[in-house]
């Protein structure tokens, strides 16, 4: 058997190559020890609260990347909650919104692994667009705890101000004043006016006082909350201030007295705010933060400063936002493998070869319940209108175009419907493969006409079954992450495909189909 020998060699080569590549990468990753001075840290949040109603919203700030600190891995666990889309904030914060499914106890925890380096890992670009007047006004505004227009703030400013000083010249003086004249007192007041009056305040109060003074002096200023990884004995988030000078935000830390530049260990989480975790429509919020150093294990990153062309093969180097998309793309061959197993080993028939895998892929990107709802609605209405279209006797391509338009409507309005009734809090656009959906509707109709409704329903059920299995595979985060680190493991997938491609045994359904063949010969 020549072909059998060839298959044996191909499979053997693929598996050997796969083992070699994975082995080589494991070896290389071991060698990629951290540069001396660099360190790995984990910041974790644990949050518990009682939702007062369904739709109660929890917002978690995500540590931002700085030139010295880069989040290379993040994980979110939650129960009783569903991820929801959130508007990007003005200050460019990164956040995750979670929404309660029903009233009652909810919990969430998040974990961010940070690579910290005394050398800059990348150079921040200076934003070319000037800050808008609207934004500038927002950072000069008076708030409940930063009472810019209060007489007590004006009084202090009156003492410190000199004729003809620009705000930039005044800010260091304001900082010195808050540092030296206002005593740090944990029991002290929290809001700017009270702190300036009492000349004592807690860390937050002193920072607010400084921000209020800056704003009163017409220097845009804001609070920043984040973590200091260098001082992790206290893992509580800490607050500092940022003041806008000519073209950049300059940090001022009133606890340790850092002015205009912070140690590289400071990682901001939320700009223009003083809370890492915010809650709407809930009560009993309990938050627990932990910061600790990770053992210097082989990292999933490498300093970009010394990037070699070999880094092209390292997908984890790409921005974190791309990881999920890349992981799902890398899982797609496994979806194809599932489809092949269903076809060749089990013998389930479907509409179109890769329709199930593509439908499953679109479910992964949105909430699966929303996906199924939109899918069923689109197929149902599509079939009804297809039956109606039959009377018009349209030619095929215009008819498909007509159907596609209806299905597009169906998809966008059912997403809107879900959002309106807040049935499923996640209103991620359900991007079903529209063309595939259209073809499925058309083929369902033709099949039910030609081969009977029963057969068409059978095919649809087969399609949904395979799609569900593909969905389970595509949802497999752990495997997705593994594939992201070791994309060469698809050499094994290729070997499996070759083996499946030469599988000449019976399909499971054939055992049923040919059951009458084992009757004794008549």
């Amino acid at each position, binding site marked *: 058997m020549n072909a059998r020998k060839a298959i044996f060699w191909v499979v053997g080569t693929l598996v050997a190559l796969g083992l070699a590549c994975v082995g080589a990468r494991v070896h290389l990753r071991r060698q990629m020890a951290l540069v001396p001075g660099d360190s790995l840290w984990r910041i974790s949040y644990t949050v518990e609260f009682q939702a007062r109603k369904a739709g109660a919203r929890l917002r978690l700030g995500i540590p931002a990347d700085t030139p010295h600190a880069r989040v290379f891995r993040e994980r979110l666990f939650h129960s009783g909650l569903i991820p929801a889309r959130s508007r990007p904030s003005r200050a460019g914060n990164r956040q995750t919104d979670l929404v309660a499914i029903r009233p009652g106890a909810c919990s969430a925890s998040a974990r961010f692994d940070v690579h910290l380096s005394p050398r800059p890992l990348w150079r921040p670009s200076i934003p070319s667009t000037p800050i808008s007047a609207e934004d500038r006004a927002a950072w000069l505004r008076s708030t409940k705890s930063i009472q810019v227009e209060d007489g007590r703030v004006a009084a202090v400013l009156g003492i410190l101000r000199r004729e003809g000083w620009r705000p930039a010249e005044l800010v260091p003086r304001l900082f010195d004043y808050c540092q030296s004249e206002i005593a740090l007192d944990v029991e002290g007041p929290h809001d700017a006016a009270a702190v300036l009056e009492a000349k004592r305040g807690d860390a937050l109060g002193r920072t607010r006082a400084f921000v209020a003074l800056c704003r009163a002096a017409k220097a845009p200023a804001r609070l920043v909350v984040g973590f200091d990884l260098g001082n992790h004995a206290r893992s509580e988030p800490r607050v500092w201030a940022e003041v806008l000078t000519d073209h950049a935000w300059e940090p001022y830390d009133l606890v340790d007295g850092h002015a205009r530049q912070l140690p590289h260990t400071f990682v901001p989480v939320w700009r223009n705010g003083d809370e890492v975790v915010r809650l709407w429509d809930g009560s009993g919020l309990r938050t627990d933060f932990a910061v600790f150093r990770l053992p210097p294990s082989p990292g999933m990153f490498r300093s970009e400063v010394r990037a070699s062309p070999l880094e092209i093969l390292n997908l984890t180097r790409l921005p974190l936002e791309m990881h999920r998309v890349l992981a799902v793309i890398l899982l797609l061959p496994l979806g194809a493998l599932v489809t092949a197993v269903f076809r060749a080993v089990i013998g389930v028939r479907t509409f179109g070869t890769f329709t199930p895998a593509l439908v499953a892929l679109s479910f992964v990107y949105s909430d699966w319940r929303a996906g199924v709802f939109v899918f069923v609605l689109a197929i149902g209405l599509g079939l009804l209108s297809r039956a109606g279209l039959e009377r018009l006797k349209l030619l095929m391509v215009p008819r498909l175009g007509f159907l596609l338009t209806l299905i597009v409507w169906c998809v966008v309005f059912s997403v809107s419907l879900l959002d309106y009734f807040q049935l499923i809090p996640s209103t991620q656009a359900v991007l079903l493969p529209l063309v595939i959906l259209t073809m499925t509707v058309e083929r369902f109709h033709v099949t039910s006409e030609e081969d009977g409704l029963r057969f068409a329903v059978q095919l649809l059920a087969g399609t949904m079954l395979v799609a569900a299995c593909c969905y389970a595979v595509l949802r497999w985060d752990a495997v997705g992450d593994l594939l992201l680190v070791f994309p060469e493991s698809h050499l094994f997938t290729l070997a499996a495909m070759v083996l499946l491609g030469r599988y000449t045994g019976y399909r499971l359904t054939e055992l049923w189909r*040919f059951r009458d*063949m*084992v009757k004794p010969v008549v």
Partner: protein
Amino acid sequence: MGRWNWRFWAGPAELRKRGVLGINRRNADFVLRANRRALYPRVDDKLLTKQISETRGVPVPATYGVFERYGDVRRFDEWVGERREFVIKPAKGSEGRGIVVIVGRAGADFLTASGERLTVAEARYHLAAILSGLYSLGGQPDSAIVEQRIQRHPAFDSVAVGGTPDVRVVLYRCVPVMAMIRLPTKASRGRANLHQGAVAAGVHLVTGKTSGGVCKNRAVAAHPDTGLPIAGLEIPGWDNLLNAAMELAEALELGYVGVDFVLDAKAGPVVLEANARPGLAIQVANRRGLEPRLELVAAEPEGPISWERRRELASILADLP
């Protein structure tokens, strides 16, 4: 027998013992190996199959006309004139899809074999649907063939309900390995299509006599509509049919092919189409497996097999268990 009817499945070892060929093995070892992809158009395009058949003197239904452009479709009523009986079929259709059999006229309207009325406009729409590729493999643009309607041979009046039976011969290396006859039923709406509930019976390769029987993947002995036995019928002109099948398989140059015939009352067996991936239900119809037959033919020395040897092999295969 009763006990067997309740079996829900057969074990793979049992099927192997009975020599049943599975779809995976058919594709991997026979279809992919014996049939060159470049030759597929010869069977996928019925117009081409007809032309090839005619060059070899293999009888086919007479072609009345071919519609290739939408412009031609507009002149369909002019073209059809007073014709009362014809068949419209897509050149690249599969599994009998898109075939309309016209059996008579009612004024300007046509009467189909299934007893429906078809207006001229509907007939035109059907032709346009065929041209747009609705019934073709992969949905490519297609052409529509209008051809002679086959008159059912009286030998099958008792077992063919509402349509014309067809005979399939599966050939491997131009040697007939198995044959079956497919009989339309009410459930199949007059079409000889096993998916849709037609019944099939095995045909003895030497005598042309029917045996066994299958309907919806179950072994049956009688026609579901008439209750008459489907075994023991004799197919008229069997030797001609077998010769035509071998002739066509040779002309098509496909190593593994199914050739479908219908039996015309006057002309005898005529070729309807050929198939490069013939289905496996033929095994259930015959209650015999294809595998030992194919292996026996595969064991022949390489190169073309002589006509004498083919007939000799067919008669050996006919009585293989």
